[in-house]
C-alpha cells in the first residue's frame, strides 16, 4: 500500500539516512513538537486530551476538518512525554495534514520502522505507535459522528 504524499516524503528522507543521522533527524522533529499545538483562536471539531497508560504524560489530540473534509491535526504534549513520542507528533502532524478521515484510517502503520528504524521499534515498541493510534482514534470518532448525523 502506498503512503500519503506528505508522509511519503518524510519516509523517503529517513530511508536515505544512516542510523546516526536518523537519530539527529528524529531529535530535530522532536524539537519542533511543541509547535504542533493549537494556534491562537483556532477551533476544532473534536478534542481528546487524556493521560493513557501507554504514554508517560498527557497528550491532547485536536482535529479540525475543512469544508472539503481535509484533516488538520494539532497535538499538545505534557512535559514528561518521551523524545520518540515528540518526534512522531511532528512527523504525523505534517505527514497526515490534508488527508480525508478515510485516508487517515487507512494509513498503514508499517511506515514507522522505516522512519524510526527497526532497532528503536524493537527496543521501545510502546512509544512509537502511540500518536498514530491516538490520531486514528479521534478520526474514527469523527467519522462515527458524521455517519450518525447522516441518519438523523
Amino acid at each position, binding site marked *: 500500500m502506498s503512503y500519503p504524499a506528505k508522509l511519503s516524503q518524510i519516509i523517503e528522507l529517513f530511508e536515505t539516512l544512516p542510523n546516526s543521522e536518523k*537519530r539527529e533527524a*528524529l*531529535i530535530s522533529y522532536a524539537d519542533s513538537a511543541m509547535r504542533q499545538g493549537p494556534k491562537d483562536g483556532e477551533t476544532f471539531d473534536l478534542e481528546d486530551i487524556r493521560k493513557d*497508560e501507554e504514554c508517560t504524560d498527557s497528550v491532547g489530540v485536536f482535529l479540525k476538518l475543512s469544508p472539503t473534509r481535509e484533516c488538520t491535526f494539532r497535538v499538545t504534549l505534557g512535559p514528561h512525554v*518521551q*523524545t*520518540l513520542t515528540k518526534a512522531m507528533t511532528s512527523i504525523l502532524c505534517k505527514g497526515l495534514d490534508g488527508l480525508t478521515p478515510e485516508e487517515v484510517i487507512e494509513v498503514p502503520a508499517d511506515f514507522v520502522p522505516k522512519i524510526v528504524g527497526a532497532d528503536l521499534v524493537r*527496543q521501545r515498541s510502546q512509544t512509537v505507535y502511540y500518536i498514530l493510534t491516538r490520531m486514528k482514534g479521534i478520526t474514527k470518532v469523527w467519522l462515527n459522528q458524521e455517519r450518525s448525523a447522516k441518519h438523523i
Partner: protein
Amino acid sequence: MIDKNFAHPDALVTTQWVAEHLSDSGLRLIESNEDILLYDTGHIQGAVHIDWRADLQDETIRDYINVEQFSALCERHGISNDTTVVFYGDKSNWWACYALWVFRLFGHTKVKIMDGGREKWVAEGRHVTRAVPHFVHGHYSPSEKRRDDEIRAFYDQALAQSREGRPLIDVRSPGEFRGEMTHMPEYPQEGVLRGGHIPGAASVPWKMAVAEDATFKSYEELRTIYEDEAGLKRGDDVVAYCRIGERSSHTWFVLTYLLGYKNVRNYDGSWTEWGNRVGAPIEKG
C-alpha cells in the same frame, strides 16, 4: 553534599563532584535512560550512552550479554578494568542503577551513581552537549563468569526465599503489589497473566528511597523505611524484585551501598516471570 553516614559514601557522588572531575582520565560517565533518545538531545560532556535493552541484554534469550560481549562493550567506550564508572540517567537514576547492577554482575567494582541523576544536573543549569565522545579502546579482561550467584536471584531462589520466610522486598507500586494491576501506572501492559505478589513479600515501592529532587534520601530516612517500617534486619539475606528487575536494582543499590547490607540479590525475572509461571504461588491484597 553526600550523607557520610551511608555505608559506602564513595558509591554516590554529587553533580558538583562530577563537574569537577570531567577531565579525569580514569573516569567514565555513563548515561542510561528510559527515554532512548534523551542522550542524543544533550548529555554531560564526555558521557557515553548505554541502553539497558540494546547494550546489556541478549537479543534472543531473556538474559544478559555474556562476558565477552561485556568486555567488548567496555572496550568500545574506553573502559578498562580499573576505570571508575559513574552512572546517571533519567527517572531518578532508575536505569542508571540497573546499568550499575549489570556492571557489578560482570565484576566491575569501581562504580558510582551521580546523586539526583540527569534531572538534577539539568535543573542546576549545568552544561550539556550533543557531541558524542570517542575514546581510545580500553583493554578489558573479562571475568571468568558473571556473578549471578552473588547478586542475582532466579525463580527457584525467590521461591525458596518465600517458603523459608526470608525477606522479599516488592518494590513495585502498591496497586501492582495488591494485584489490582500487572504493570506500573502510566506504563503499557506488557504481558503478565496474573497479578499479586510473591507470598511473604513486603511492599516498599522503590520511589520511597528518593527525595523530590531525585536524590537519595538520607541514611536515617532510608534506615527508617527499610528497617523500622519494612522489618529488614542487619545480616538479612534479601531478595528484591519488581516487574523486570529495573526498579529493584535501584532498591538493590540502596540496600547494598547506602545501608550496607551484604547479602542482597535482585530477582530480575521478577513479576513478568513469576506472574506468568504455571503453578507459581501468589498472594493478593
